[in-house]
């Protein structure tokens, strides 16, 4: 077997509509390896199977075919070593910001004093200081998303699975969050599997970018980004790569 941290082998996934009965093939023979400490981003059109892929890796969906290995062990159920930031946040409505963020540590029976510290740390990190006691219903869209990110990070997983985690953030907050994420990733050498619709973001963050084709999701092209961190968005190499990948998504890949 491979040396990869995460290896996704021959995954296919199809769904049958509850009412219509039509079968949707969300993924078809998908293969990918993510090395330890690698930052891989998936881009592709809406509905091509990105979320489905992350959920299969997280162990929340069962692949119709194929298997996922983490450190050479097959994974079939969710575990705290793979943290997922959900596309639609999925906060616990009965817990305030702090309560949502410390949910994971609470499960691991981290002592209360330490939990307070963790909460403070991540609340500051995502820029939500002053909102500790708000409940999900009292948060703006971007604030909810940041709570979801903080909740996943607070659990300190080995593999971070992030589904459009910055989609609801303004440019400034977003670039701040990108920097924080890169910092965390570099400090802890986590493996990151990241989904975004922003090619610029993908190029700014990733070691490799996987472009998916339209449904059913198969790999259209994989790009390795050899630019050194921190990257500059106005750098010539950056821009040309961005253009190339944008073209690949919509038409043909070079």
């Amino acid at each position, binding site marked *: 077997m491979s040396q990869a941290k995460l290896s996704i082998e021959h995954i296919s996934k199809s769904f049958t509509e509850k009412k219509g009965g039509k079968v949707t093939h969300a993924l078809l023979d998908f293969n990918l390896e993510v090395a330890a400490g690698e930052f891989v981003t998936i881009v592709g059109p809406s509905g091509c199977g990105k979320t489905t892929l992350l959920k299969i890796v997280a162990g929340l969906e069962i692949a119709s075919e194929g298997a996922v290995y983490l450190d050479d062990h097959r994974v079939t159920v969710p575990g705290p070593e793979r*943290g997922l930031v959900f596309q639609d946040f999925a906060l616990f409505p*009965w817990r305030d910001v702090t309560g949502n963020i410390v949910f994971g540590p609470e499960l691991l029976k981290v002592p209360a004093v330490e939990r307070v510290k963790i909460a403070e740390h991540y609340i500051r990190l995502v820029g939500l200081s002053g909102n500790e006691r708000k409940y999900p219903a009292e948060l703006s869209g971007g604030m909810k998303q940041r709570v979801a990110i903080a909740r996943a990070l607070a659990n300190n997983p080995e593999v971070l699975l992030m589904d459009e985690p910055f989609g609801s953030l303004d440019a400034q907050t977003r670039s701040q969050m990108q920097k924080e994420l890169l910092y965390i990733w570099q400090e802890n050498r986590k493996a990151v599997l990241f989904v975004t619709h922003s090619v610029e973001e993908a190029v700014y963050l990733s070691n490799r970018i996987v472009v998916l084709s339209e449904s059913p999701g198969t790999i259209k092209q994989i790009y390795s980004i050899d630019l050194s961190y921190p990257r500059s968005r106005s750098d010539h190499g950056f821009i040309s790569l961005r253009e190339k990948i944008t073209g690949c998504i919509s038409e043909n890949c070079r």
Partner: protein
Amino acid sequence: MLFLLAWEIAALLANLPQLFPTPVDVLSALYALLIAPGPAGLPWAGELWGNTLISLWRVLVGFAIAAVSGILLGVAIGWWRNARDLLEPIIELLRPIPPLAWIPLAMLWFGLGFTPAVFLIWLGAFFPILLNTVLGMESTPKKLVEVAKTLGASSGQILFKVCVPFAAPSIMAGLRIGIGIGWMCLVAAELTGSNSGLGYMIMYYYSTMEAAKTVAGMLMIGIVGFLMFTALKKMEDNLLFWRVQS
């Protein structure tokens, strides 16, 4: 107020004091019951209060057991397919059997007075609590369970940190239905060889055809039931403040 007036007029028109006493009759009966000596256990409390306290105690004990057992079993059924497959048929067979039909068995198993009464109250309160707990458990959004799983929650933790909090409103509604039905079963419950309690008191005055006192007892059941409901509601509002109001 309007309601009382309507009652008085309707009762006067019906002119059947035996079946339909007027509020004035009932109030004077209430007064008479307040000053009469209480039941053997609590003679100092007056007949009305003494019996109310005794019934209250029975209902609270029965309800507490029903709450604990209903929630636990409901959680188990909502959680484990196996528990559901095993227990649901038995429960659904037993559920519709009327409390009156249980009286002989209750007396056989539990003797007279307190314990069989508590058993019957439990019977009445248990099933609604159970069903609403299952309902709440089953309507927990998949998403929230998934989040908890990716954060490493064990089954038990998902249960207690996700499903149970989510099911809380539904469970609380079940408790409210349950305590109502528990009270409602009081008369049947106190037919199991009691000689005290509101249900007994009602039966007593029904037998001696003292209609005003019977209605006074019913009214007391209604009032205490209402107070318990209000207390539960208060508790619920405090517990579930996070619920968004529409």
